[in-house]
C-alpha cells in the first residue's frame, strides 16, 4: 500500500522531475479520480480493499458478538442474517479480490518490463466502479426490510422474496462483475502483448502466471454469476420463473449456476495468493523457485479442473449417486496439482539460506494453514462425510483457512514484501513480526475451534445455539476481537512506514530477483520502463 503522501513528497523533494507531467496535470483529489497510472490505481485498489476489510470486519465482529453467548442478545435473526450475507459479499468481492487486483496493477507492468497496463483509461474505470458497488451494498442496509439476509451465495428462492435491498445487491454484483471482467481483460492484454523483449512467458515471475490464469478464470466465470443474478432479477420483477417452483422453475438450478461460477471463484481468490507466495518464498530462501514449469502446469490444471467440481457444494440437494461420485472424484483430483504446489514451495526452502522477516513469516503461516484448509477441503469432498458436515461450522472453518489464512495472509506477505519498493521506506520489522504472531494466534483461536463445533453438529448461519456449544463459541468470539484489533496494528505499521520509515535500499531482500528489484530504483519511479529492458 503505497501512499499519496509519499509520491508527492518524493516529487517535491527531488524537484528534478516535472510534477505536472507525472500526475497528468491534476493535483489533489482530481489526480486520483483521473489517474491512469498503474501504480496510482494499484494504490487505490489496495486502500479500497483495506477499507472494505474494515467494514466487513465490523460485521464479522457483530456476528461473533451475538454468538458469544447462546440466546439472542444484540441483534434479531434478520439483522444477523444481513450481517452474515454482507460480511461474505464484502470480504470476497470488496476486500480479497480488489486487494489482489491492486497487487496486479502495481506489480505486473514492473515484473514484465512494461510501461503501464494496456488500457490505462479503462483501468481507471475498472477501479472507480468499485466504490459505487461498495456503496450500493452498504446502502442496502438502509432500505425498507434492510440488506438481503440470504447468505453470500444469494440462493433462490429466498432472493426472489427479499425487499428492495436485494435489488441493490444484484446491481452491486453486476457492477463488481463488470469491474473484474474489464480488469481481467486488461491484465491478459498487458501480459500477452506488452512483455519486455526476451521476457518469454516461461520466464515471467510466477505471480504474473497465476494472475494470467486467474484473469482467464474471471472472464469465464464472472459472466455466469452475472447471468445468475440477472435471472434472479427478472424472476423478481419481470415475471420469469427460472427459480420459482410455482411457475415451473427450480431453485436447485440456481445452485448449479451459482456454483459453476462459485468454485472457479474460490480459485480466483487462491491463485493470485499462490503467486505472491511463489515470489516471497524463493526470495527469503535465496534460491530460485523449485519446479517453475510444474508450478505453471499445476496452476493451469487447477484452473481447468475448477470448472468441473462445482456440485461438491451441493451433495445434499438430491442428485443421482453417479453425479455425486463424478464430482467427488473430480474434487479429490484437484488436490493433486494443489499438492504439487505445496511440495514445490517446501522444496524451494530445502537447503536454502532461510531468513524469517515478516513477509516470509506470513508466507510460512500461509503454507501451514492453507494446507490445513486444503485437507479439510479433501474431507468435505467425500460425499458420505460431507452429508454430515454440510452447512455446519466445519465448512466455515474450512473456507476461512483457505481464504483468511490463505488469501489474506498472502496479501499481508505481499504488502510487507513490496512496501519498500512502493514507498521507498522500510516498515518496522519488529512491529511487523508482532502483527504476524498476533494474527496467527488469533486466527487459529477463531477458526480452529470451529472444526469442533461443526463436527459436533452446530449449523452455520444461526444466531442462537444450544448450550453445549458455548465454550468453543466464546473462544472463537474472543479470538475474533483480538484479530480485529490486531489489524489496526497493521494499519499503524503501514502508515508509520509511509510517514517515517527508514529509507529502503533498491533491493532490501537479498534473494529477490524479478525486474522491479533488479532494474528499478526504490521507490519505484512514477513512470517505469518507458523504454523496455531487454531480458536475457
Amino acid at each position, binding site marked *: 500500500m503505497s501512499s499519496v503522501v509519499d509520491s508527492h513528497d518524493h516529487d517535491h523533494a527531488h524537484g528534478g522531475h516535472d510534477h505536472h507531467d507525472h500526475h497528468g496535470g491534476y493535483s489533489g483529489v482530481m489526480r486520483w479520480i483521473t489517474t491512469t497510472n498503474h501504480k496510482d490505481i494499484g494504490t487505490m485498489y489496495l486502500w479500497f480493499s483495506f477499507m472494505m476489510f474494515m467494514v466487513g470486519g465490523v460485521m464479522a465482529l457483530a456476528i461473533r458478538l451475538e454468538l458469544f453467548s447462546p440466546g439472542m442478545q444484540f441483534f434479531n435473526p434478520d439483522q444477523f442474517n444481513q450481517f452474515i450475507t454482507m460480511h461474505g459479499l464484502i470480504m470476497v468481492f470488496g476486500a480479497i479480490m480488489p486487494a489482489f487486483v491492486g497487487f496486479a496493477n502495481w506489480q505486473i507492468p514492473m515484473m514484465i518490463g512494461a510501461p503501464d497496463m*494496456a*488500457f490505462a483509461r479503462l483501468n481507471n474505470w475498472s477501479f472507480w466502479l468499485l466504490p459505487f458497488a461498495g456503496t450500493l451494498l452498504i446502502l442496502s442496509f438502509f432500505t425498507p426490510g434492510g440488506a438481503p439476509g440470504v447468505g453470500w451465495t444469494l440462493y433462490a428462492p429466498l432472493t426472489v422474496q427479499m425487499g428492495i435491498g436485494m435489488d441493490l445487491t444484484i446491481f452491486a454484483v453486476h457492477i463488481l462483475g463488470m469491474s473484474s*471482467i474489464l480488469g*481481467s*481483460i486488461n491484465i*491478459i*492484454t498487458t501480459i*500477452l*502483448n*506488452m512483455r519486455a523483449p526476451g521476457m518469454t512467458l516461461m520466464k515471467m515471475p510466477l505471480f504474473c502466471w497465476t494472475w494470467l490464469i486467474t484473469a482467464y478464470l474471471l*472472464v*469465464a*466465470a*464472472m*459472466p*455466469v*454469476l*452475472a*447471468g*445468475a443474478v440477472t*435471472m434472479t432479477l427478472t424472476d423478481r420483477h419481470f415475471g420469469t420463473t*427460472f427459480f420459482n417452483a410455482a411457475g415451473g422453475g*427450480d431453485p436447485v*438450478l440456481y445452485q*448449479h*449456476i451459482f456454483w*459453476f*461460477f462459485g468454485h472457479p471463484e474460490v480459485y480466483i481468490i487462491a491463485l493470485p495468493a499462490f503467486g505472491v507466495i511463489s515470489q516471497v518464498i524463493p526470495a527469503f530462501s535465496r534460491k530460485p523457485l523449485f519446479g517453475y514449469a510444474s508450478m505453471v502446469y499445476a496452476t493451469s490444471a487447477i484452473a481447468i479442473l475448477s470448472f468441473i467440481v462445482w456440485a461438491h457444494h451441493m451433495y445434499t440437494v*438430491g*442428485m*443421482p449417486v*453417479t*453425479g455425486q461420485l463424478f464430482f467427488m472424484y473430480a474434487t479429490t483430483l484437484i488436490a493433486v496439482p494443489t499438492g504439487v504446489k505445496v511440495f514445490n514451495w517446501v522444496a524451494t526452502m530445502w537447503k536454502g539460506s532461510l531468513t524469517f522477516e515478516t513477509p516470509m513469516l506470513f508466507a510460512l503461516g500461509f503454507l501451514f494453514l492453507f494446507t490445513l484448509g486444503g485437507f479439510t477441503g479433501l474431507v468435505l469432498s467425500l460425499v458420505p462425510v460431507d452429508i454430515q458436515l454440510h452447512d455446519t461450522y466445519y465448512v466455515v472453518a474450512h473456507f476461512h483457512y483457505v481464504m483468511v489464512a490463505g488469501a489474506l495472509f498472502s496479501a499481508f506477505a505481499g504488502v510487507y514484501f513490496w512496501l519498500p519498493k512502493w514507498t521507498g521506506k522500510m516498515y518496522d520489522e519488529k512491529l511487523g513480526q508482532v502483527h504476524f504472531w498476533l494474527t496467527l494466534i488469533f486466527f487459529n483461536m477463531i477458526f480452529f475451534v470451529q472444526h469442533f463445533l461443526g463436527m459436533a453438529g452446530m449449523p452455520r448461519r444461526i444466531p442462537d445455539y444450544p448450550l453445549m456449544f458455548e465454550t468453543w463459541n466464546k473462544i472463537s468470539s474472543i479470538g475474533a476481537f483480538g484479530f480485529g484489533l490486531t489489524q489496526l496494528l497493521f494499519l499503524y505499521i503501514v502508515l508509520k512506514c509511509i510517514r517515517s520509515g527508514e529509507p529502503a535500499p533498491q533491493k532490501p531482500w537479498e534473494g529477490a530477483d524479478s525486474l522491479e528489484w533488479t532494474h528499478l530504483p526504490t521507490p519505484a519511479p512514477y513512470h517505469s520502463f518507458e523504454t523496455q529492458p531487454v531480458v536475457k
Partner: protein
Amino acid sequence: MSLERQNRRTFLRFALIAAGMFGFGYALVPFYYQICAAWDVRNIESRAERPANTQVDLGRTVTVELDSNTHKLPWSFRPLVKHVAVHPGEVATVEYEVTNTRGVPITGQAIASYGPQLAGEYFRKFECFCFTQQTLQPGETRRLPVVFVIDPKLPRDVNSIALSYTFFEVEGRSAAAAGDRS
C-alpha cells in the same frame, strides 16, 4: 500503432468470450432440464408412488383388513366394513366413519400403518383422509373414503394386509379452532 491495434484485438476477443459466457449461463437452464430428464431426477412425485403396472392381476386375491384406533382423542372412529377382497392392480374404495363426541371442535391427523410392514411399499393410496388434517365440529360425523391400488409386485406370500389408521389430535390446531380451552 501496431501495439494499440493488437491490444484492441485482444480486448475484443476476450470481451466476446465474456459475452459468450453470459449466454452460457443461460444455456445451463435447458441443459439442466435435459440432464434431469436423462437421469430421471426431477419427478415431483417420488418414483415409489407411481404405480408401475396398472394391469389387474385376476389370478390373485388379497384380503385387506381394516382397522381403526384413536390416540387420546374423544372421537369414535370405525371402518364401514371390516375387510375387503381385492385383486392386485384393481382400484378399490373403502370408507371409514368418524364422529367428534366432544362439545368442542377438534383437529386430528390420521397416520396409516400396515401389517406386514413390508406391504406398505406396495399399497398405493390415491385418495385418503390421512393426506390432510381433519377438523370436526362438536358432534359432527363424517364419512372418509380411501381409494387405493395394491401393486401387482406384492410378494406372492402376502395374502392379507392389515390397514390400520390411528387418529392423533393436532394440539395447536384444536386450540385454535376452539379458542382457549383451559
